[in-house]
């Protein structure tokens, strides 16, 4: 019987490089976030050699157009073109640390070979907005809450997670374990809660429900942003059951 040779399948896709590892003598493994395939892992052969034609086109924190030959085990990157190199981010250590943080979060909330256009476009829009004048803390909080929303983990900010009642305007408690706000009277029934004032609750709701262009022109107090940071940090840790590695570096260089 004549041997059947399966034809290789090629795809062309836009992608953002989230992570990279050295592999073999001169190769690298990249983890891409793509609009149509979710996370994909590919090998870029010979890319560490100075004369590699792909080397300058691709690095972590680059938006590229990738031509990938799909294989059962590890797919191959056969050609690559830069769409956006995010030069502004790469020339500033503080912005790089923000970039690393956004990439790590996107990886944690995306699934391999599972299309999730929205997370890709959220990351892409957020990276496009970063420059020296951007309010970094506000952008990160907006990104975190929208990432939680798109991945189906948005905490309930309107109903008490214990009684089920609609929350009245006022200060409440945030319980990561219960997945949202609870009334203050339940403080003995939920562990590790965070006390959240009414303005911070309003700010969180506003961030989830609005596009960046509207958010960026609105005023937020430092105190509210700090509180939202405390809530999202604790909640993300509970969901992912791990801490975000790049957060330590982010707080160190900022």
């Amino acid at each position: 019987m004549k041997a059947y040779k399966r034809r290789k399948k090629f795809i062309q896709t836009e992608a953002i490089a989230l992570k990279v590892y050295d592999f073999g003598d001169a190769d690298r493994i990249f983890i891409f976030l793509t609009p149509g395939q979710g996370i994909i892992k590919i090998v870029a052969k010979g890319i560490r050699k100075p004369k590699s034609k792909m080397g300058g086109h691709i690095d972590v924190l680059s938006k590229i157009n990738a031509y990938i030959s799909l294989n059962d085990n590890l797919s191959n990157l056969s050609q690559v073109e830069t769409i956006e190199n995010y030069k502004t981010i790469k020339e500033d250590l503080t912005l790089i640390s923000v970039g690393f943080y956004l990439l790590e979060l996107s990886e944690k909330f995306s699934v391999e070979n599972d299309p999730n256009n929205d997370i890709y476009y959220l990351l892409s829009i957020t990276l496009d907005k970063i420059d020296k004048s951007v309010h970094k803390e506000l952008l990160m909080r907006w990104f975190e809450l929208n990432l939680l929303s798109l991945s189906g983990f948005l905490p309930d900010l309107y109903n008490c997670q214990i009684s089920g009642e609609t929350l009245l305007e006022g200060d409440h408690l945030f319980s990561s374990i219960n997945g949202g706000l609870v009334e203050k009277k339940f403080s003995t029934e939920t562990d590790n809660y965070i006390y959240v004032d009414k303005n911070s609750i309003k700010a969180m709701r506003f961030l989830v429900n609005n596009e960046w262009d509207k958010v960026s022109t609105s005023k937020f107090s430092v105190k509210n942003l700090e509180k939202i940071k405390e809530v999202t940090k604790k909640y993300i840790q509970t969901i992912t059951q791990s801490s975000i590695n790049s957060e330590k570096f982010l707080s160190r260089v900022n």
Partner: protein
Amino acid sequence: MSPLNNSPFIPEALNDLIESFRLLPSIGPKTAQRLAFATLKMPTDQVKSISLALSDIKNKIIYCEICQNISQEAKCEICITESRDRSTICVVEEAMDVYVLEKSGAYKGLFHVLHGSLSPANGIGPEEIRINELVTRIENDENVKEIVVATNLNLEGEATAMYINQIISESGTKVKVSRLARGMPSGSDIEYADDTTISHALGSRVIIDEGL
């Protein structure tokens, strides 16, 4: 996995050797088998010599107390050579990079090996690489006038270079910090160069004739 691995027909000692070779980078199951069978066919004294070299690498190799390069003595050969330029320290990611720069013959100063680069997403921060040792070294050695940061030209290498620059300026030491030039590799065609390389090459262009 190759059908030979963990087969009951393979003697345990040979199987252990195959599994040991597989721990090395770039060695797959097939190559591990070839290496194990090749070792079996070698004369006993050669095998003993390989075995001795393997145990020596862990017993005898230490890090130089000055530059953190690999060495057999407390201070490495480069650090004790009097003729080297003591005003310049070239900072590299790995010990292998020292040998590449040395081979070029273009650098006569001292080195500092970080043993990695900042990779926040993988949990590698400044404490995990030897940046603090570099700062202490600069603070305690008034001969040092320039730090040449020769970390890799990727995002992690660039972040490491920027962090070194930031921490040296914060330490208050008056040391110049420079970075390796970026541009077209020798023998390459402009046709295939990417935008980043071209823009760096233009930025670091060299004047052939002033035209005066």
